[in-house]
């Protein structure tokens, strides 16, 4: 396969980060394709939970949303949302919450609510959805998002969900881990340098002493993404 896009690298890195995960709560947007790739590569036995009320999904196609009917057909269990939030998430059965985000700060706080003041928003974003409870109840949380000074801000305008449980952020430039209370760059994607990341980060960037380079997507990963999972570029646009 020739080359790869930053989005493809981000999705591949997101999928690889799920190696060893048993139960993943899949959030809205990009996590869906990363999870689909993980299920076909590093985490064949992963169990997928969706806030729409599905446990143990085996989607026969790439879901268009977290409420796609293909998530139900062939799943282990479909239930009301109250049961899912209470007996799976709040009960502590979720190993990993895998979320997207609009805005994120140095401390891992996530904002998906508003840009600007709450009562007079510059931009009204979707809001919490399940993010607030996922952040509090999943054993750990990963965020997958494109990185820029607009999205990586010193202090989020609104804390939709706290950074407390956020352990890893995977972007189109690299990877961050939560270390000593702040997000620290641990991996650079191939072809990206630290200055580029610094440029796209709205706070004084902390870089890990053991900074590593992500392995580029393999041909097999790219083929799965491009030919099997998302030939219509629903997520990879």
């Amino acid at each position, binding site marked *: 396969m020739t080359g790869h896009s930053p989005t493809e690298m981000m999705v591949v890195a997101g999928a690889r980060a799920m190696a060893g995960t048993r139960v993943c709560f899949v959030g*809205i*947007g990009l996590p869906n394709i990363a999870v689909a790739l993980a299920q076909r590569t590093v985490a064949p036995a992963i169990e997928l939970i969706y*806030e*729409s*009320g*599905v446990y143990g999904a085996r989607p026969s196609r790439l879901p*268009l*949303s*977290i*409420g*796609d*009917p293909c998530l*139900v*057909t*062939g799943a282990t269990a*479909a*239930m*009301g*949302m*109250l049961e899912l*939030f*209470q007996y799976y*998430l*709040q009960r502590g059965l979720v190993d990993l919450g895998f979320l997207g985000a609009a805005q994120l700060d140095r401390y891992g*706080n996530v904002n998906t*609510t508003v840009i600007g003041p*709450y*009562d*007079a*928003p510059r*931009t*009204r*974003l*979707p*809001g*919490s*959805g*399940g*993010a*607030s*409870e996922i*952040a*509090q*109840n999943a054993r750990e949380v990963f965020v997958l998002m494109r990185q820029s000074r607009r999205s990586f801000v010193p202090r989020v305008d*609104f*804390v*939709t*969900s*706290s950074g*407390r449980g956020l352990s890893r952020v995977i972007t189109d430039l690299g990877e961050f881990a939560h270390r000593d209370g702040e997000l620290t760059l641990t991996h650079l994607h191939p072809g990206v340098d630290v200055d580029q990341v610094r440029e796209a980060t709205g706070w004084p960037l902390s870089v890990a002493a053991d900074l590593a380079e992500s392995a580029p997507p393999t041909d097999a990963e790219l083929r799965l993404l491009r030919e099997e999972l998302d030939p219509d570029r*629903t997520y990879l646009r």
Partner: protein
Amino acid sequence: MSKVVTMAEAVAAYVPDGATVAIEGFTHLISFAAGHEVIRQRRRDLTLCRLTPDVVYDQMVGAGVARKLVFSWLGNPGVGSLHAIRRAVESGALEIEEYSHFGMVGRYAAGAANLPFYPLRSYLDSDLPAVNPALRTVRSPYDGEEIHVVPPLRPDVTIVHAQRADRDGNTQVWGLLGCQKEAAFAAAHVVVVAEEVVDPQVIRADPNRTLIPGLVVDAVVHCPRGAHPSFAQGHYDRDNAFYLAWDAVSRDPARLAAWLDEWVYGTADHAGYLDRLGADRWTGLTPGPARSGTVDYGDYR
């Protein structure tokens, strides 16, 4: 004894101006047909409740039926923003009251169970309680732990779409169940909109599948494909082209008004909407079969 009425009758009877209305369904079984009829009857000052104000609430807000929105996630799933709602929120024309999904589900559950509050683990270190004073805490009398609580939500009417119901409103749903059960039990009135109105024996043959009993249902509307462009598990798929196309319509108030004129005000009812949509629209939206299998309840005499 039959509760079967037309959608126009159901909306006229149970959705008065100023009412608190929940058209529930999490991506699945969203009663667009009911939303359109509310627009057709030009209701005003409604408080619309729903975890995920979807395209149907964007249409309703765009048509001017709402005064307030109670919600937890505001977007066109997989597409982007709901522009009519976003305009109304950003301009201050639409009041909002905001929770998380679990919080909204807990609110319906408290309403359904007649509880003064519902406890849940969420909102820790979140700014949501700062902007919504209804998010409070209670201290456990056992270990002293503080836990967040939400207040009951009791809609004046909850409207749900279902795969099947009998004429008394006994309702069965499969696939994603969302919070329709809780929203129905929480409400003063319930309207069930069904793909099929079946013989009571069909319901009674599988009592564990019953989601909502006729006991809490006021009206049953027979409305096949009434969830379009959302989906009905086993009946039809989501019409994703509609959701994608809605983005451009919703961005432009003039286009939105024209859309409402053509598809809602310009159609007498959902049958008219379906006629305009055309039979070809359903090509590719019909799934193959995947039957559940049966279980045996046993005949005990």
